[in-house]
Structures are given as structure tokens and as C-alpha cells.
């Protein structure tokens, strides 16, 4: 039984209705988003189920997952904290921000914290270059922007998320030294 179809019959019908009836393959990306929203990544089973719904091979669905950076085929940290270090952000200190943040958290870009809360990733332009340094947080399939950051400000946010997402206080190496900072111009 196709679990995805069973769980989201209406949503899937709505997705399929957006495209011509003989072009079901077009539903691949929306379906991948749907599956990823459930599990935080696209599982092997989800690949097969999406292949079944869209009438293409599992390999083809897997290659789509591989091509796009926001689709993931393995579970990582609950929060994927993605920092833009592209040119315009680099010109405004994003690289230094990322380095300092990584030091405080004790993980490097690409790594996941041992409590499974955070995976840090370095990403390309997020179309918010005037508000650097910034990161986007991908949680499940939701993406949120956090602009005009300092490492202290980010840690402060992570502290609140830690309690909410994994129910334990944020564990970082140099947490004690980090004092929460005044608000700044976050919008």
C-alpha cells in the first residue's frame, strides 16, 4: 500500500491537478517536498511511492533528489542551519560569522552536532544580501530566514529551538561565554 497516497489523498490530488493529465512526472518535486516535510528527508520507501504515483522509475526520482540541494536522502540534524557565504555576504563578514559560529558550536560545515539538533551547511546566495550575515533554517521542509546575525544572536535562537525541538538545553562548547545580545534590527 502506498503510504504517501494513503496519508495525503487530497493533497496529492491537488498537486496532480496542477499539471496536464499526461504529464504526471511534473508532480515529482511537489511530492518530494511533501514526503520530506513528513520525515525530514526522502526515504527509500518514499522514492518508490513517488515513482509509483508519477509513473517514472525509482532511479529517476532518486536522481532528482540528488540534483537539488534542498532535497536530502538521509536524516541529519533537526535544524539544517544554512549560512550564505556567497560574494555579497562575504563582503559583509559572513565568512567570519560562520567561522566563529562553528567554533562556538564545536562543529564544522557539513557536520551534525552529537545531540542531533544542528547540521551546519554553507550555502549560496539566498536573495537577502543586504541583510548579511544571515542564515536560513531548514526544519523538515520548512525554510525560514534569519537576517542580520551575530554568532551570539544565532546561539540565542538555537537555545530556544533546542528546548522546543529536542527537549534538552543547547549543548555547546563555549556556551557560557556567550551572552544573549540586544535585538538589533531583525525584521
Amino acid at each position: 500500500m502506498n503510504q504517501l497516497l494513503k496519508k495525503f489523498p487530497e493533497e496529492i490530488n491537488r498537486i496532480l491537478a496542477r499539471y496536464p493529465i499526461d504529464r504526471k512526472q511534473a508532480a515529482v518535486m511537489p511530492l518530494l517536498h511533501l514526503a520530506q516535510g513528513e520525515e525530514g528527508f526522502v526515504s527509500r520507501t518514499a522514492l518508490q511511492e513517488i515513482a509509483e504515483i508519477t509513473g517514472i522509475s525509482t532511479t529517476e526520482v532518486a536522481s532528482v533528489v540528488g540534483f537539488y540541494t534542498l532535497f536530502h536522502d538521509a536524516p541529519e540534524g533537526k535544524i539544517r542551519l544554512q549560512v550564505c557565504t556567497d560574494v555579497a555576504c562575504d563582503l559583509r563578514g559572513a565568512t567570519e560569522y560562520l567561522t566563529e559560529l562553528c567554533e562556538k558550536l564545536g562543529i564544522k560545515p557539513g557536520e551534525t552536532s552529537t545531540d542531533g539538533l544542528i547540521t551546519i551547511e554553507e550555502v549560496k546566495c539566498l536573495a537577502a544580501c543586504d541583510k548579511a550575515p544571515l542564515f536560513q533554517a531548514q526544519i523538515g521542509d520548512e525554510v525560514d530566514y534569519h537576517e542580520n546575525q551575530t554568532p551570539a544572536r544565532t546561539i540565542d535562537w538555537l537555545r530556544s529551538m533546542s528546548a522546543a525541538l529536542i527537549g534538552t538545553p543547547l549543548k555547546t562548547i563555549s556556551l557560557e561565554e556567550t551572552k544573549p545580545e540586544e535585538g538589533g534590527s531583525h525584521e
Partner: protein
Amino acid sequence: MSELILLRHREVAGLNQLKTYIADGGFETWKKVVTSRKPEEVLNDVKASGLRGRGGAGFPTGVKWSFLPNNIWPHYVVANSDESEPGTFKDRELLEFNPYLFIEGLMLTSFAVQANDAYIYFRGEFSQIAKKFDERLAELTAKGLLGDALFGTNYSLRIHTHLGAGAYICGEETALLESIEGRLGQPRLRPPFPAVAGLFDKPTVINNVETLANIPYIMEKGVDAFRKNGTEKSPGTKIFSLSGRVKKPGNYELPLGTTFRELIFKHGEGIINDAKVKAIMPAGASSTLIPATDAALDTPMDYESTTAIGSPLGSASVMVLDETVNISRVINNTVHFFSHESCGKCTPCREGNFWMSHISDRIESGKGKKDDIELLNSVATQMQNKCFCALGEFSTMAVVSGLQHFRADFEARLES
């Protein structure tokens, strides 16, 4: 500052709410056009306005629409909301704060080419915006501004959203179409052009968000009003995304033809710590590096004048570099960007960017030899005119111009 047309939400609070937009006269043009004007009249007005595409290439919008054949149906319109060029953040402001202007533009465009289905392709990072759009589109349908038999005519229009998932190349129009169709975002061979065989192999218009947001004004106020701003060949206002080493980065809507100097020093309030401006990248990472001479600063930012000093205007994402910036580091950043974003379809771009990143890393880490500078230049120039799509070409521009004008910055990094 001139009249704000696209960024009007900065003057009218709450314009991203339907009732405010309607109270401000929104969708009246839409209703009037559907009930009382012919599609070809809309097309002719947009042609006469001289509006040029704001997504990068600056191609005349009305001319592009006129390429759709009238013997192949259905027609589609696709809005390019992929906004991924480093330094560009104008579409995002429109999508968040003035979304109905863009939607009305998309509707008018669909009517002009008699498309009954239109798609908005959002970059994956805009998932919140896309979700909000689904709600907005449902509300418009409920209000009878979208849907079947609009205002009692026989014209119907549905607008759908499609969310990408992180791939710069999907901004390229044919890769974008592949992505909607559920495949890898890799560019298609042209011809056939999308105007003839685009989405689902049918005639398709693809326009940028900002381009579409100009249409309601043209249809409401007329061609002459639109042409009041800008230059003869580049009419209208444009949103300039100003970033980098300026005191006040941000979006500025100004007439096309405004000088770099005015943008950087008047609106951007000059350079951080009043340092000297060193170079300008007018089209984001896809630019040539233009040394900031007086002549360059006094150049009007329109399509022709900017091209004449060596770089396309692109989507007008003006990145400013000052004397504290080493150009080798900037190049290192752009080659890594393109290396990451190369779709891998053709060898010159895939391999060339891999090698450029490699050589540039060596130079940046202080292990480079004098020959590496020549090698970098040689890889870049060999790639030129050999890549399958424009991304490959873009990736060489900053490298070649950077080495041409700022070689000392690279030499300073070499192994001593």
C-alpha cells in the same frame, strides 16, 4: 527619488493584503482589460512601451510575446521567481510586500497571449512565500478574479505554483522548464525556443517577476507614462539591488539610466569607513569586474551604456568592492559558486569550473606559483564560447576581467 511604481508598498502600508491592494485600485485594470480590450491590444501596448526583461538579458518583452504561434495551443506563461544570482534580492521584496502587483501583471500577460494556465516557479528557499501565494491565489479564485469565465467573458485563467529545491541553474529559462516537468534542471538545446515549444512542448512565455510587475502600470497609465522614466532604449524604472561595501545596501527603484555614482554615493550613502571604491560588479557574480574609475562611476545604468563599459547590466544587482577587498578572494568565491552550480551537462563548464576553483584555492592559500595566474587565465579563456549555456560563460567573466585589471591582487597572494 522618482515616483515609486514597483516598490509602492513602501508608501502604501499593507499593500500585500488583498483588501488594501483592491482599495488602492488594484485589479481594476485586470477587469477592464478582460472585459473591454483585445489580447493583441495589450501585446501592442507592451511592445510600444519598450519594456525590456528585468531577469537578465533585457530582451523586449512585447516582442518576445509576439513570437508565440497562433496555430499551436495551449499557450503557457511561466513567471521566473527563481531569483538566485548572488547580489540580487529585488524579486523577493516584490513577492513578499507587493505580490498582487506581480500577480496582476502575470494575469495581464496570460490574457495577452491567451494562456489559460500560468505557473510561478519559486526557488526552493522561498517555500514560505510560495505557501502564502497558494493562499492568495485561492482567495483570488474565490473572489472571481481568477478561474473560469472571468467577469462573464469566455476567458479562463488558473495560476499554479511550483517550488524548486535549490539549484541556481533553474533560473535559466529552459532548465526551469525541465524542472517544472519533473526532471533535473539542465538547459535544453535551442531551437526550438520556448516561444514555440516550451513548457510541456507548448508555446510558452517566460518572464521575470519584476518584468511582470511593470505590466499593470503600462496598461493602467499608458505607454507615455511608462516611457517618462528611463532612456529611449531602456525605458522605465528599475529596482537596483545594491550590496557589498556600501553604508546602506538595499533595493532602490530608480529610472534606468541613473549613474552608478548616484546609486552608490547618494542612495547607498557611500562606502563603509569612507574607503575608496575599487570595483563594481553590476550583474552580480555573472559580471565583469569594472574598475571604479570616474568615467565608470558616471556611466548611466541602462542596458547599452553598462554593456559599453564591459559588463551586461543583468538584473542590476550592483555589488560594490572597496580598496579593502582583495580581488583574488572575490574570484575564489565566484568560481566556487559556479563550480557548485554548474549543472554538469557539458564538459567545458563542469571541468573548467572545477579546475578554476582548484587553481584559485591554491593561490588563495598562499601556495600558488606565478604560473598559476596564467593557468587560471588560460582555463577561463578556453572555456569561453564553448559552453552549452550562459552559466558557463558567466563563470569566466569575473576571472578574466579580474586578472586583467587587478593582477597585483593575485600576485600578492603567491608563495613568496
